[in-house]
C-alpha cells in the first residue's frame, strides 16, 4: 500500500471518529415528562405551558412555569427572559436537564413566524 493511501485512510478514520463523537455529544433525545427521572443528560422536552402557572420576574428576567404532556406535569425554570411568543404558545420545546425535581431550561423553542405559516390562522378571523 502506498503511503498516500495509508495517510488518506488514517485521515478519513480520524474524521469519522471525530464526527461520531461530535454527533454523540450533541444528540439530544426528545422525551416525555414521565421519562425525565431516568435520563441524566440534556434533553428536548416538548410541553404545553400552563398559562395560569406562569410567573415572570422582570428584575431577574426569570421565567417559571408548569408544563404538561400526556404523561405528567413538570416545573420549568428558564433564566433568559420570556420568549417573544410565550404567552400565546400552545407548545414549547424546552432544552435542558432535570435538577432537584425542577427542569432547568437552557434554551426554549417557541414556534416563530416564517413564510410557511398562515393557513391555520386564516380560519380564526
Amino acid at each position, binding site marked *: 500500500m502506498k503511503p498516500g493511501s495509508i495517510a488518506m485512510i488514517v485521515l478519513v478514520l480520524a474524521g469519522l471518529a471525530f*464526527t461520531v463523537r*461530535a454527533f454523540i455529544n450533541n444528540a439530544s*433525545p*426528545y422525551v416525555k415528562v414521565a421519562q425525565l427521572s431516568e435520563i441524566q443528560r440534556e434533553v428536548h422536552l416538548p410541553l404545553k405551558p400552563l398559562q395560569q402557572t406562569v410567573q415572570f420576574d422582570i428584575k431577574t428576567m426569570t421565567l417559571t412555569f408548569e408544563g404538561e404532556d400526556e404523561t405528567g406535569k413538570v416545573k420549568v425554570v428558564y433564566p433568559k427572559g420570556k420568549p*417573544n411568543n410565550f404567552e400565546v404558545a400552545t407548545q414549547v420545546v424546552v432544552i435542558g436537564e432535570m435538577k432537584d425535581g425542577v427542569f432547568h431550561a437552557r434554551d426554549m423553542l417557541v*414556534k416563530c*413566524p416564517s413564510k410557511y*405559516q398562515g393557513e391555520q*390562522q*386564516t380560519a380564526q378571523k
Partner: protein
Amino acid sequence: MLIGYGVIWFGAICALLSVVMYALSGRRSALIRWARWGFIGAFLGIVGAEAVLQYALLTGRYDLQYVFSFSEQSLSPWMKMASAWAGQEGSFLLWALWTGIYGLILMRTAGGYERWVMTAYGTVVLLLLGILAYQSPFAPLPKPDPAPPVWPPQDGFGLNPSLENVWMKIHPPIIFAGFAALAVPFAYAIASLWRGEFHEWVVRVRPWAIYTTTMLGIGLALGGYWAYETLGWGGFWAWDPVENTSYFPWLTMAAGLHGVMLQINRGRMVRWNHLLMAIPFVMFVYGTFLTRSGVLAEVSVHSFDALAKSALWILLAMLGGGLLLTVGLWAWRYRSMPLPANTQAKPISREVVLKWGIGLLVLSALISLVGTSWPLISKAFTGQMVALQPSFYNQVHAPWIILTALLLAAAPMLTWRGMTLDEILQRLTKGWMAAVATGFALFFAGFREPLTLLISVLLAFVVFSNLGAIWRRVRTSKVTLGGFLTHVGLGIAILGLLISNFYEVKERVVVVQGQDTMALGYRWRYLDMTGNEKFPGDPLADKFNRVRVEVASHDEKFIVEPRFYQDQRRTENNNVVWPHIVRWWNHDLYVAFFAPPQVDASPITIRLHEKEKATKDGYTVEFLGFETGGAMGSEGFRAIARTRVSHPEWEKPVEVEPFRVVTAGGVIPIPVPLPDGSQILVGQMDVSQRMVEFQMIMVPGKPETNPRWVIPLEVYVKPLTILVWLGPPLTVIGGLLATVRRARDVRYGVPRAQGETPPPPAPRQVVPRGKKARLRRPMPEPLSAKAVEKS
C-alpha cells in the same frame, strides 16, 4: 378564479404533450416542433398563472384563499406583489416560473441534447404544474357558517409583519432562481445516462452548474442578511432545518461543478459527475418535503404548514422517481462509462487538490443531510426522536474548514500537471506571509482564541492566495478569474461569520424608564416611544411604534430605535421584533427586544361590585354603575364604570367615568385625571359579576404607583460583520463571470491554455463483463473541442 385553474391545467396538458413528443421524437424528428410548442405552452401557462395571481393580489380579490391569507389593502403595491410568494402555493408557482424560464433557454441551447434533456426537464415542469393543480393558489375562500354579513371579505387577513420588508421582495425570487436551476444539471445528467454519451454533456452542463451554485450561494447569503436584519437573534446562520435544506444541495452542486471541471480538463470523474449533477435536485426535493410536510415541525423554530395530500404525493413521486431514475440509470450505464487513461496524477497537482475538495464538499453536505434528517432517522429506528444541537455542525466544521481552507489556498497556485513541493511552497510564500501578518493584526486587535485564530489565518491565506492568482492572471491577460474571485469572496465571508459569531459580546440590558443603566461601556436611557406612548394605551399594537433609547459613552451619543409589535390579528406567532443595528467599520451594535416591553407599576387597587364603596390610602371610591357606548363588540365600544371618588383633602367628591375601549389593538383602559393629579382607571372588569377593579396611578407622594416602561433589550457587539457583507458580492460577481465564460465554451469549444494542459488523455474503454454487455453498441466517439463547436 376559474381562469387561474384554467391556465394551470392548460400548462400541465402542454407540458405532458411536450414530454411525450420529445420522447417520441427520436424516431420521427418532425414531432420535435410539437414538443417545442408544447413546452412554450407550458411556459405560457405558468406565466399566465403568475400574472393572474399578481392581478388578484393587486386588485384585492379577497375571495381567494391565498390572497385573503397573505395580502391586505394597506400593503404597498410592491409588497402586494411580493406576497405572491408568502405561502406554499405561491412559492411553488415561483419555483415553476423560474423552471419555465430556464426551460426556454435550455431548449434553445441544448443543441444535439435537446431531445433527451428536454424530456427529463419537461417532466419536472409537468410535476410542478401537477402540484399547482392540486394545491392551487386560486382556491376560493371557504364561506364560514354562519356567513358573515359582508361576503366576500373586503380586506385580507394580511401578510405576516415579519415578512414585510425589502428582503421579502428580493430573497425568495433569488433563492428560487437557484432552486429551480438545480433541475437543469439534473436533466442533463439523466439525458447523458439515457443517451449513453459521457463527454459533450459536461461542457454543456458546466455554465449551468456554475450558475446554479452562484444563485444558491447568493440566496443563502441574502437569507442570512434577512435573518440578521430582521429576526433579532443577532446572527446570520443557525443550522436550522430550513437553512440546511438549501445548504446541502448547494454544497453538492459546488462539488459537482468541480467534478465537471476535472472531467473537462483531465478526463477524470467521468463516473461520478452524473451523481453529483443529479443528486442536488433530489436533495432539494427531499428538503422541500422535509420542510413542507410538517415532519420536522417539533424540531425547527420555523413553523410549517402541511401540504395537501395529493400535492404531497406528487412531491414524493418527484423525490422517489428522481432518486430511482438517477441511481437506476447510473447503475445501468456504470460499466460502459469510459475510464480515463491510467496515468497517476502527481500528488501535488490541481487534479489531486480538486479531488480532495470534492470529497470535503460532499462530506459536509452528507453530514448536514444526515444531521437534518436525524430526528426522522432516530424516530424510525428507535421510536424516540433525537435532535442534534446546532453546536454539532460548528464542531464538525472546525476541522473541516481547516482542510478546506488549505486546499482553497493551494489550488490557484497549482498546475494541472503537478509540481514539486519546493515549487509550490515558493509560489505560496507571499500569500502565506500576508496571511500570517493578518493573523498578527487580529491577535493584537484582541482576537486571540487559538483555534479561531488558526482558522482565521488559513482563511486569510485563501483570500491572499486567490488574490495573487487573480493578479498573475490579470498581468498575463487571461480572463478565467471568476473561480478565484468566488474563493476570495468565500474566504472573506467565512472569516466574517467566524469572527463576528465567536467574538460576539452579548448582554441583556433592561432599561427602566427614569433610570440610567450602564452596560457594555454605554449609558442606556429610555427616551420615549414614537407611537402611542401613554400608559395604559397600548403602543405594542402600533406597527410603526419605535422605542427610542439614548445610548451614550464618554465620546459619542446616539439613539437606537428597536421595534416591538404585537400583531393583534394573530393569536400565534404574533410578536414581531425589529432590531436596530448601529454600524461602525469594525463592528456592529445590535439591539433587539428579547421580551415584550412591559409596564412596571404598583397601583393602588380597589375591587368593587356595583353600588359598593371602599376606602384605601385616603381615597374613597364608590362604584355607581355600568354604562356602555358604541356598538357592542365592535371597535370603539366602551364599557364605562361610573364612579364617585372622594378624598379628605379635596373640597368635594368628584364623579368620573373611566372606561375600557375596544380598539384594533385590543381592549384598552382609558384613565381619568383626579383633582390631585393622580389618575383612576379600570384595571379589570367582570360584567357578569358586575365587578370592577379600580387602579389609582400617579398618586402624589407614592412614586411606586407611577407606571414605568421596562424595556428588555438584548444587545450584541459583533466585530467585523463588514466582512460578511463584503464577501458574498465578490463570490456572486466571480460566479457570474465564470458562468458567462463557460457558456461561451459551449458555443466556441473549450480552450486549452498554452503549456498549461494537454488535451485530456484518451478515455480507456472498459471491456464490459457478461453476455448482455457485450452485445451493446460501441460508445460514440468522445467529442473533442471542435465537435462541441459544431453541435
